[in-house]
């Protein structure tokens, strides 16, 4: 093959290589998991172990069961024999044969019972069992097969609905939001500034999560494309009411710590009353705390004055 031809082919191979960049992420993620072979090794070791020692373990288990059974039977026959000798009851043998078939609750109990007692105990236990069954039946009314099937379906349905809820929660996480949809959200929607600094437009929004108490946590992204460089404003609006309800008298700072435990102290906190343009001059990330328990966190690149003015349009 000539060098030119080889180079041409290599160019094509290069295209294949480039095309591989677009393969399914699932496949790539799967290839990352080298634990797969470890699983195989583990499984192999388990099989070898079972093959080598499984038969011994099984034999030990069988001996153990046989031993326990033999011991129980011998104790039982000994006890019954003693009773027979002491009472001289001719019918004892017949009762004993019944006893053999009767599984006593424990050796101690067996030692205390005469065959008659054992028989009456059997009867009474049977009654108890019947009574228990009746009780259970009384607790759980009789179910026809159709009803049973229906209930099974219902329980499946409950399961399905739970997983459906899980899925809907998953779906709710990081759900894209339009500005209109964000404004329609209860509580947090009211804290979206009515006007933006000049040149900024709504770019993207995300519903990050729904708090346990029902409050929302959203993030809105505004962009000013500018003449040369784009500048952005990111607002994270969190309804901390859930934390407030949970923690009773916790301070607002403590409530916020509940929501952002991982990065506390990395932003400037200020109450809505104390908000000034100066604060935006000294900090890139400002969390404004409102009396209602809503926190609006600002991160961005606007001038302090225009950002301050923007916040004046928040009620």
């Amino acid at each position, binding site marked *: 093959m000539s060098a030119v031809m*080889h180079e041409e*082919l*290599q160019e*094509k*191979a*290069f*295209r*294949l*290589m*480039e*095309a*591989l*960049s*677009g*393969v*399914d*992420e699932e*496949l*790539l*993620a*799967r*290839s*990352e998991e*080298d634990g*797969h*072979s*470890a699983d*195989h*090794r583990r499984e192999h070791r388990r099989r070898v172990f079972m093959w080598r020692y499984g038969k011994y373990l099984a034999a030990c288990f069988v001996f153990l069961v046989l031993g326990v059974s033999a011991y129980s039977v011998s104790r039982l026959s000994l006890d019954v024999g003693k009773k027979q000798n002491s009472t001289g009851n001719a019918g004892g043998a017949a009762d004993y044969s019944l006893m053999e078939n009767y599984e006593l609750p424990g050796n101690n109990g067996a030692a205390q019972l005469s065959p008659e007692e054992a028989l009456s105990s059997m009867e009474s236990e049977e009654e108890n069992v019947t009574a228990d069954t009746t009780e259970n039946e009384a607790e759980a009314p009789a179910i026809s097969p159709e009803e049973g099937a229906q209930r099974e379906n219902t329980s499946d349905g409950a399961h399905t609905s739970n997983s459906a809820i899980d899925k809907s929660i998953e779906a709710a996480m*990081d759900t894209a939001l339009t500005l209109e949809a964000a404004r329609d959200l209860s509580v947090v929607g009211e804290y979206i500034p009515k006007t933006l600094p000049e040149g900024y437009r709504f*770019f*993207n929004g*995300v519903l990050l999560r729904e708090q346990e108490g029902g409050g929302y946590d959203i*993030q809105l*992204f505004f962009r000013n494309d500018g003449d040369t460089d784009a500048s*952005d404003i*990111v607002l*994270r609006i969190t309804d901390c009411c859930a934390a407030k309800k949970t923690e009773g008298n916790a301070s607002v700072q403590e409530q916020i710590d509940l929501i952002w435990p*991982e990065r506390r102290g990395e932003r400037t906190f200020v109450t809505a009353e104390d908000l000034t343009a100066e604060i935006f001059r000294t900090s890139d*990330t400002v969390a404004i705390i409102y009396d209602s328990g809503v926190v609006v966190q600002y*991160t*961005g*690149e606007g001038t302090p004055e225009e950002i301050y003015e923007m916040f004046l349009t928040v009620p």
Partner: protein
Amino acid sequence: MEDAEILDLYWERDVRAIHETQSCYGRYCHSIAFNILRNREDSEECVNDTWMRAWSCIPPSRPCRLAIFLGTITRNLSLDLLKRKRAAKRGSGEMELALDELVECVPTAYSMEDAVETAELSRMIDRFLHTLPEKECNVFLRRYWYVEEYAQIARRYNMKLNTVKTSLFRTRAKLKAYLEQEGIVI
């Protein structure tokens, strides 16, 4: 730091996003770049470019798998750089070997006029990979996506070196047949 937290930092336009990404995925991306370029400085350049590319893509992107997202950027940047360098000088190392091997997959009939778009080719390869058994597919991707050495792949999947080579040889033959059957022209 979890991926979600790193993504939050990007979304907050917090420059620590880049530091966190570097500490979590620096080695991973560097290994991808180095496997392709076989040059430390070039690899570092690609990795740094990866962070900048990620910074400009997130937001509005919010990748589900940050590692794969970053890895793909690094790979593409590395391939671009390699292409530029190859134009000036023929390269060497594992990437060249991998390319030589991939030559086997190029369909016999070809015409430059009917060149297939990379996206279409990518789709076909993706479809092909989905037809492969899991292990075979993994081995192929480790070799031709991550450009890993045979020995590395063998260690990763606890396989013999020759098994890896045989598996790759068979997969390449299958890919060639598949592409030809689908009428793909490169």
